[in-house]
């Protein structure tokens, strides 16, 4: 079965680095947030005690920010600067468009059975939201994290009580990010009928042509009208690779669900 290429190898590499660092940051962050509970204590012991957990959190945070800077350079390098502003406002771009508002309303209408399905192009509105949520989330978490990295130095430039405020921003934003990934992102990637048990598009890079025609008719039609469809058709990845993708993906999912469930179960102990 033929596939349309949806993500380049570089983009998949960004996602891989992001997911690995995100899982480590979630585990080390939750371990420290819950260190007052038995579960959090166990989790910090897994990383070699509280101080080591903090060190890992800081270094992986720096790695994450480094990858983010590389991502920004990648964006700047791939923008068609001569074609501005049209080149970044097209349907292949993740910049929100006016059409997204109409499509989101129509999509909700379709969910409620009021009208037919919207005709999505390459990116649906929730995918654009996902991208920009992560983008600004990294800015916020990375920014507060950098300031909290060395409080002795940063408190020379801002008052010490500002660190209390920044720590809470960091915590709540991280909670939001984890809740969004562990609940919504995993649901979309794994439990939707089209994607069950796992959507491989972020690993393979391609989406089945017929599936794309059904889910994103405007995208495929646009490619056909432009005569560009032949250029983006790729072969499906081999079975062995797909097995690896599934094992890897489910290992991540199970680890994250373990964090999510235990964070919920122990939440009342944080309040007391």
């Amino acid at each position, binding site marked *: *079965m033929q596939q349309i290429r949806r993500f380049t190898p570089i983009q998949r590499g960004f996602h891989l680095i992001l997911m690995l660092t995100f899982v480590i940051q979630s585990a080390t962050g939750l371990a*420290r947030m819950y*260190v*007052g509970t038995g579960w959090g204590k166990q989790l910090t012991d897994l990383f070699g005690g*509280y101080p080591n957990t903090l060190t890992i959190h800081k270094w992986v945070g720096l790695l994450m920010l480094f990858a983010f800077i590389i991502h920004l350079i990648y964006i700047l390098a791939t923008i068609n600067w001569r074609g501005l502003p049209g080149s970044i406002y097209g349907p292949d771009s993740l910049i929100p468009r006016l059409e997204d508002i109409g499509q989101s309303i129509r*999509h*909700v209408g*379709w*969910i409620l*059975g009021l009208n037919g*399905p919207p005709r999505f192009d390459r990116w649906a509105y*929730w995918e654009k*939201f996902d991208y920009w*949520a992560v983008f600004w989330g990294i800015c916020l978490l990375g920014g507060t994290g950098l300031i909290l990295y060395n*409080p*002795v130095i940063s*408190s*020379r*430039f*801002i*008052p*010490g*009580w*500002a*660190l*209390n*405020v920044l720590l*809470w*921003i960091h915590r*709540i*934003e991280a*909670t*939001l990010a984890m*809740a*969004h990934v562990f*609940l*919504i992102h995993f*649901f*979309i990637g794994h*439990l*939707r*009928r*089209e*994607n*069950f*048990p*796992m959507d*491989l598009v972020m690993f393979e890079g391609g989406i*089945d042509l*017929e*599936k794309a025609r*059904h*889910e994103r008719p405007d995208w495929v039609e646009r490619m056909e009208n432009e005569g560009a469809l032949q250029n983006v058709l790729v072969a499906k990845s081999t079975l062995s690779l*797909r097995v690896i993708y*599934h094992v890897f993906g489910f290992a991540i999912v199970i680890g994250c669900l373990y964090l999510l469930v235990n964070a919920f179960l122990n939440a009342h102990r944080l309040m*007391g």
Partner: protein
Amino acid sequence: MKGAMAVIRLAYHWGAFGFLIGAAVFLTIPSVPSWAQEEVTSKIYRYRERVATGYYEGYEVSPRRARAILETPGIRRDRFSIGASAAAVRIRTHLPDSHRGLKFYYRTTCIECHPGQARNLHSMRAGITCRQCHGPEPIAAINHYYSAMNTIRRHAYVCSKCHEGATASFSGFYVHEPPSTALSTRESFPLLFYTSWGMLVLLLGTLAFFVPHSFMVGFRELLDKTKAPESSVGKLANSVSHRIMGGIRKLFEKKKVPENEVDDAA
């Protein structure tokens, strides 16, 4: 036009030159004291007549504005109703021995009277005990002038024991932080209160929209009649969902059957 452009170019060049000079001068200033760490300028003379040993002087900073907590409601009494001389002995945060006169004091532990104060980042994460910061008996009140915990020297005598290079600003971090979303925090630490609630509204708002949205999308797609071809791995899911949906459809069909039978019988 030409003259105007020349003027603009000249202004731009001088502006850039001035900026570079300014930046160079700024960067060569060894340490620019920020407003958060202002040291006392007259440290020798300010408290001369009141300082017993002069031992602290080199480190002290003015008791000053870099405090976020204005006042904890319900704890601090009205100064005017007590009077200045009475306040000196009755407001415990100002006493040389903050527990002076308490009955059976030596039979109690800290957290019996200060419940919740043990739940702070220092004790929970690093296992630090109360006395490691608040000192041995008699425990001086944090606002007593000669207390090591007084904010004018806390950074040098308490924080620096572990945090090398701690400044007065650093000691402004609230170890015993008020609960960030509690209503009382709106009075005592408004910035923390409003920031936390702002972030919580963002969190709850995002989840309140996208959790139902995702689940409704997922459910709607299960019912999708214009069935899309599944990937090879998804075929199992397809058959399972068809069985489930077929079962649900049968349930509804069975409900309709008796009505038809009644109609037929009539």
